[in-house]
């Protein structure tokens, strides 16, 4: 929205932008009411009860318990309404729908690297379809960053060593800002970009342009070979490592007696610190790849392993049962998930 060509309000380009803005206008109205009331009263009393002669003093009024209660209780009630409404909007903003399309974002000084599952990789630019919920899993390679889409009204910090996530559904085709919203050093202000929301067909067309290297899963397959994973993880299960066919989403028993669900977090941990959880019946022989594989390649490998379990391709990172290892990225906190 602009006044004389000056923008004073951001575009509403996501499905929940309107919810956020409605909440904003509610609070703005309530606060303006109180601010104006106080301002008017204070000015009015100051003039109406102006001192008229030397030595005049004010009336002797000590206080009033009913008034104190009233102006404590009413603001408390209003505050509770604001809290409740805000918490409900927040809950919605932090719970991606199950069918959300998945995109990965890695922040590094001073750029944003995005990866589509289909293989496209973008730097500081993101092309997405309108009308589909999109979940972005975010991490950082170095210091804290924060991925911010003002027109979608959402942001999340990028933390090294962890995965965080945000989601949105873009509603209006167009090009909007991407900002880094956590100070990260010299070129923090330059760590910006644009998100282009395309009509679904236009997005498909853009995808056909293809990313070099094929889909993420295809890239992961090549990495699987490169790093000799296939020399131990034979499909037959007779190799030195367990077969990875159809393993995603299952529960495996570990050598220490605990069990683990095979999800994103487990896969990541197994690659980076392979001796964390060893499947029962196998020896701790797998080398660790900490420091040897970049974040993006890690994600590609995980996609490849997931592609070997076609029925469980929507499993994402929710460790259950096994002792959580905080070295693994914490799966994005989602309330109420004791299921699965």
């Amino acid at each position: 929205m602009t006044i004389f060509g000056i923008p004073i309000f951001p575009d509403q380009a996501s499905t929940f932008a309107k919810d956020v803005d409605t909440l904003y206008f509610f609070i703005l109205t309530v606060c303006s009411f109180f601010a104006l009331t106080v301002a008017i009263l204070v000015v009015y009393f100051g003039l109406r009860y102006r001192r008229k002669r030397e030595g005049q003093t004010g009336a002797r009024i000590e206080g009033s318990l009913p008034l104190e209660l009233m102006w404590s209780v009413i603001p408390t009630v209003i505050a509770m309404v604001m809290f409740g409404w805000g918490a409900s909007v927040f809950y919605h903003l932090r719970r991606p729908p199950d069918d959300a399309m998945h995109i990965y974002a890695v922040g590094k000084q001073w750029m944003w690297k995005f990866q589509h599952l289909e293989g496209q990789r973008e730097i500081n630019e993101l092309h997405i379809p309108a009308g589909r919920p999109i979940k972005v899993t975010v991490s950082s390679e170095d210091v804290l960053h924060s991925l911010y889409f003002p027109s979608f009204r959402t942001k999340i910090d990028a933390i090294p060593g962890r995965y965080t996530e945000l989601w949105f559904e873009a509603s209006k085709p167009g090009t909007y800002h991407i900002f880094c919203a956590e100070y990260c050093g010299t070129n923090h202000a330059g760590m910006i970009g644009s998100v282009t929301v395309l009509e679904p067909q236009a997005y498909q067309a853009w995808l056909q342009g293809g990313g070099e290297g094929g889909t993420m899963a295809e890239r992961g397959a090549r990495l699987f070979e490169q790093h000799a994973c296939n020399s131990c993880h034979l499909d037959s299960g007779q190799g030195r490592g367990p077969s990875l066919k159809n393993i995603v989403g299952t529960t495996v028993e570990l050598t220490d007696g605990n069990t683990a669900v095979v999800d994103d977090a487990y896969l990541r941990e197994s690659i980076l610190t392979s001796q964390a959880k060893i499947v029962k019946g196998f020896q701790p022989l797998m080398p660790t790849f900490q420091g040897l594989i970049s974040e993006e390649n890690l994600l590609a490998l995980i996609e490849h392993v997931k592609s070997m379990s076609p029925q469980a391709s929507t499993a994402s990172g929710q460790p259950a049962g096994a002792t959580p290892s905080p070295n693994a990225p914490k799966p994005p906190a989602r309330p109420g998930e004791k299921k699965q």
Partner: protein
Amino acid sequence: MLDKLRIPERHYLHEGHSLRSWLLTKDHKRIAIMYLMSISVMFFIGGLFAVGIRFELATPQGDFVTADTYNKFFTMHGIIMVFFFLIPSIPAVLGNFLIPPMIGARDLAFPRINLLSLYIYWIGGIFTIYAMITGGVDTGWTFYTPYSAAGSNSHVIPVALGIFIAGFSSILTGLNFIVTIHRMRAPGMTWFRLPLFVWAHYATSLVQVLGTPVIAITIVMLFVERAFGFGIFDPARGGDPVLFQHLFWFYSHPAVYIMILPALGVTSELVSTFSKKTIFGYSFVAFSSLAIAIFGFIVWAHHMFVAGISTYSAMVFSFLSFSVAIPSAVKVFNWTATLYKGAVSFETPMLYAYGFIGLFAIGGLTGLFLATLGLDIHVHDTYFVVAHFHYIMVGGAIMGYLGGLHFWWPKITGRMYNNFFSKVSAIMVFVGFNITFFPQFVVGYLGMPRRYHSYPDEMQVLNVMSSAGATVLGLGYVLPVIYFLLSLRRGRVAGPNPWGASGLEWQTQSPPLTENFVEIPIVTGEPYEYDHVPAKESHLV
């Protein structure tokens, strides 16, 4: 009785004129004056950085200074303003000067510790300024890891040490006030006869004493991380960078209450004096200071809603953050009710009090936007937050400080300042402030992030408005320096009680004796009684 007023022969400024008599003084009033001079210097240094920031931000490109230099500007601006100006300001200047006379004591409980606290402040300030001169620091005043521990090439350690040292100055001041208020009150000065200024400082001191040690240990941990390569916050070794944020904000949130509570106390004094009417709801106002201090300790993670904390934690902290707003609202309503049927006059201190009420109300109310989770996701780390805290820190705390200075100046110096220019400057500050910071709410909601050296073109108009306002604001701050200094030589002699105010400090000569009172008074009346106080003078006790 109304013979020509004269500066008394014997007063605290005449008790020795040598440098030694000042540097080795035990007199809380002299220590207050030295603090006044020190923090004024710091304010102007911090203000220079602000000028640099607003100058750069008048154009969308980063064309005035390099990105690194700009990052150092906003970092140093924040560090100096928070740790070396706002946190000491009212307590170290006005609190130090006024608490003993207000309670009927000859000095604070520990005069030598008071002097030590000043020395420590100087040493901390010197470390920090040294670090500035030799290259500065660029981590933001919040020092988040991993950037501050491993990423930044700037002088993190000397500045961190400077802040660490200055923290002890704050702790000692708070400790001194607590013991003084507990043990040095004159006979008859019960807790509920204390001026609200004293209540506010008591609450502030509790926060200083309990909160500051936590930033100190946080700095120690940052220091060992950076200097020795320990890995407490290093993700590669299992450390958690977010732990730093928890530890940092556990102090830094209560710290903002250290900065505002004293100004709330000043405002109570001003509103009462210039309505010639007792504060409406005295005990509610007194307890609200304590409530703010206590609740202030349980809301810190509202600075971390998007930092990866769990949804449930976020909800708890959002809920608690609303609780802090209520006692602040109670104060504003009580001041408004005080004006009702008062006898209101608009001398300069009252202009500042009015400005305070308006700007603090806006600043506090915009805090509600930030406590609201669904909204905070969008506005966190944008200029909306910058506007919010400047409304409270500058529109609130600094106006409270200036209002207090203008109110008690005649008591401190024995002289009045120029009436016309003081009112002009109050209005300039108010107008300039709003022009500077109101547009920042708008540009923040638009999405402009904080700490940005350059920004998209379409945000320029709002930024230019803000920079223009800053010019007016800056001029408004320069004027008082001039007329205050001039008043020392040419100001009208004020006498003991030029405002007709209540309070023990106004029952003594201006400037006061070194020992404050010829004889310690015995208090029998309630606070804020005006009926028996003649307009311009009162009897010396």
